[in-house]
C-alpha cells in the first residue's frame, strides 16, 4: 500500500467518523442554543433510536422503514424528555438543569438495562450494507455503511440548512439562540421553538444512533455515552450553540482522532481520548466561543 492510498483511506475514515460526530454535535448545539442546556440525555436519545430500529426490525418491519421509525422514536423521546424533565426546571440555574439532564441519562440508561440487559445485541444490518468497495487493488476500502453514513449526513444536513435559513421557525430558532428576550419581543412563541428544537435535535440523534450502531454492528444501553462525550468536544470546539460550528467541530474532531490513530505511534495514540479532552479544556480556557466565534467574555 503506497503512502498516497493510505492517506486517502484515512480521509475516508475521517469523513465517515466526522459525519457521525457532526450529526450528534448539531443536535447538542441546537438544544444548547435555545435553552443554554448541556443535554447529557442526548446520547440516550441515540440509543432509543437504535433500539427502536432493532425492535421493529425484529418484529418484521423491513430495515429502512424500521430505521425511519427509529428516527421518529428518538424525536418523540426528545419531546417527552423536554416536556417531563426539562420544562419544569427551565428557569433554574445552569447547574440545576445540567444535573437534571444527568438524572435523565441515568434513568434512560438503566431503563435500557432493565428492558434489554446491558449485554450488546446484534444490529440487524441488511447484507448489502456490509459489502465493501475496493479501489487501487484493495488499498482503499470503504463499506456501504461508510457511504450511507456520509450520504445520509450530507442529505440531513442539507435539510437542516434549508430549515434554519428558509423557514420562519428555523430562523426563529437561531434568533432565540442569540437573544431570547428579543425573540419574544418580535412575537416568537418560545415554547413552540423549544419543542421544535428538541424534535429536530432528537431526530438527528436518532439518525446518528442508527448509523453508530450500524458501524459498530451492535446496540447496547450505554452506546450513546462515548459519542455524546465526543460530540460535546466537537460542539465546543466549533462554538457551543452554533450549528455551523458543530458541523465544523465534528469534522475537525473526526479528522483529529483518525490522524492520532493513523500517524502517531501506539504509545501516544492509546491516549487519544486524553488528548481530545485536553483540547476541549484548552478551548474552554483560551477560546470558549469556539473556532467560529470571537472570544466572548465568560470568565469568572
Amino acid at each position: 500500500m503506497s503512502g498516497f492510498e493510505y492517506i486517502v483511506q484515512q480521509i475516508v475514515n475521517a469523513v465517515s467518523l466526522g459525519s457521525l460526530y457532526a450529526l450528534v454535535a448539531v443536535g447538542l448545539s441546537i438544544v444548547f442554543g435555545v435553552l443554554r442546556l448541556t443535554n447529557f440525555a442526548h446520547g440516550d436519545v441515540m440509543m432509543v433510536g437504535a433500539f427502536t430500529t432493532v425492535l421493529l426490525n425484529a418484529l418484521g418491519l423491513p430495515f429502512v422503514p424500521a430505521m425511519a421509525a427509529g428516527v421518529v422514536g428518538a424525536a418523540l423521546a426528545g419531546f417527552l424528555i423536554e416536556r417531563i424533565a426539562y420544562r419544569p426546571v427551565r428557569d433554574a440555574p445552569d447547574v440545576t438543569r445540567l444535573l437534571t439532564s444527568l438524572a435523565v441519562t441515568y434513568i434512560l440508561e438503566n431503563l435500557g438495562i432493565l428492558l434489554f440487559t446491558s449485554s450488546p445485541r446484534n444490529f440487524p444490518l441488511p447484507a448489502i450494507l456490509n459489502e465493501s468497495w475496493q479501489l487501487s487493488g484493495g488499498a482503499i476500502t470503504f463499506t456501504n455503511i461508510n457511504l450511507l453514513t456520509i450520504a445520509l449526513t450530507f442529505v440531513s444536513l442539507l435539510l437542516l440548512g434549508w430549515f434554519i435559513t428558509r423557514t420562519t421557525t428555523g430562523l426563529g430558532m437561531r434568533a432565540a439562540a442569540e437573544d431570547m428576550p428579543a425573540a419574544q419581543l418580535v412575537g416568537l412563541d418560545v415554547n413552540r421553538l423549544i419543542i421544535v428544537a428538541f424534535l429536530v435535535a432528537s431526530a438527528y440523534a436518532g439518525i446518528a444512533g442508527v448509523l453508530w450502531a450500524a458501524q459498530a454492528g451492535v446496540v447496547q444501553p450505554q452506546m450513546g455515552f462515548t459519542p455524546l462525550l465526543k460530540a460535546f468536544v466537537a460542539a465546543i470546539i466549533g462554538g457551543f450553540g452554533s450549528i455551523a460550528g458543530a458541523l465544523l467541530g465534528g469534522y475537525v474532531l473526526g479528522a483529529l482522532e483518525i490522524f492520532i490513530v493513523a500517524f502517531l505511534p501506539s504509545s501516544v495514540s492509546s491516549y487519544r481520548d486524553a488528548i481530545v479532552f485536553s483540547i476541549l479544556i484548552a478551548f474552554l480556557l483560551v477560546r470558549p466561543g469556539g473556532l467560529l466565534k470571537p472570544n466572548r467574555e465568560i470568565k469568572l
Partner: protein
Amino acid sequence: MPEAAIPLLHIDSLEVRFGAVRALKGVSMDVRQGEVVALVGANGAGKSTTLRTISGLSRPRSGSITFAGASIGGRPPPQIVRLGIAHSPEGRRLFGALTVAENLRLGACTRTDRAKIAADTERLFALFPILKQRWRQLAGTLSGGEQQQLALARALMAKPRLLLLDEPSLGVAPLLVRQIFDALGELKRQGVTMLLVEQNIKLALELADRAYVLRTGSVALSGSSAELRDSDRVAQAYLGAAE
C-alpha cells in the same frame, strides 16, 4: 363616552418590583390613538421598565395595563405582539447572525397576511433606503445608525397599533440621529401611535405631542410637549428639586 376619548393604552397605578427593589411605584399614563408620547427621566427612573412591562417582559406586581379595551398586564410577549404592540428595545437587540432580510421577516412572524408583507417591506425601504442596500448583509455587521433603522423597521413589520421605542438615539452617530428622528416624524404623519423613551429631551419633545417625566419610579410631571419645553420644571424633576 365618545370613541376618541378612550385611550389606546391606559396604564393605572402600575407597580413593578425586582426582588426588594420597587422599580415602578404606581405609574399611571395614557396614550391615545395617533399620538406620540415621550417618556423622559434620569437613568433608573423606570422608563425602560415601563416599556418592558407593557410588552410583557416584566410582570406587574399590581396595577393594570389596558390596550384597546383588553387587559394585557402579565400576558406573555408573543400575545401582546399579536394584539398590536411592537417594542423596539434598548440596545436594539437585533439578531446579529441573521441577515437584514431575515430580521425583517421575523419582525413579521406574527402576521398571517403574507401578501401584504412584501408591500410593507417596500414601504419601509422608502423610509429607510439603506436597508435595501444591506438586504443580504448580516445585521451584526451594520453600523450603529443602520442597526437602529433596522430595529425600527423590524418593529414596524409587525404592523403595530402602538410602537414602543426605547432610546432610538443610543449609540447612533449624531448626524444619523437627525435622520432617524426625521423617519419617526414621517411615521407620526402616517398616523403611527408611539410611546417613546429618549435621553435626548430636546429631540423627544420636538417629536412628541405630550410627555411624562418619570422620577424614581413615579410620574413626577406630565403635560404637552410645548408646555414642558418652555418650563424649567423638567430640569428640576431631573435634578430632584421640589416641584
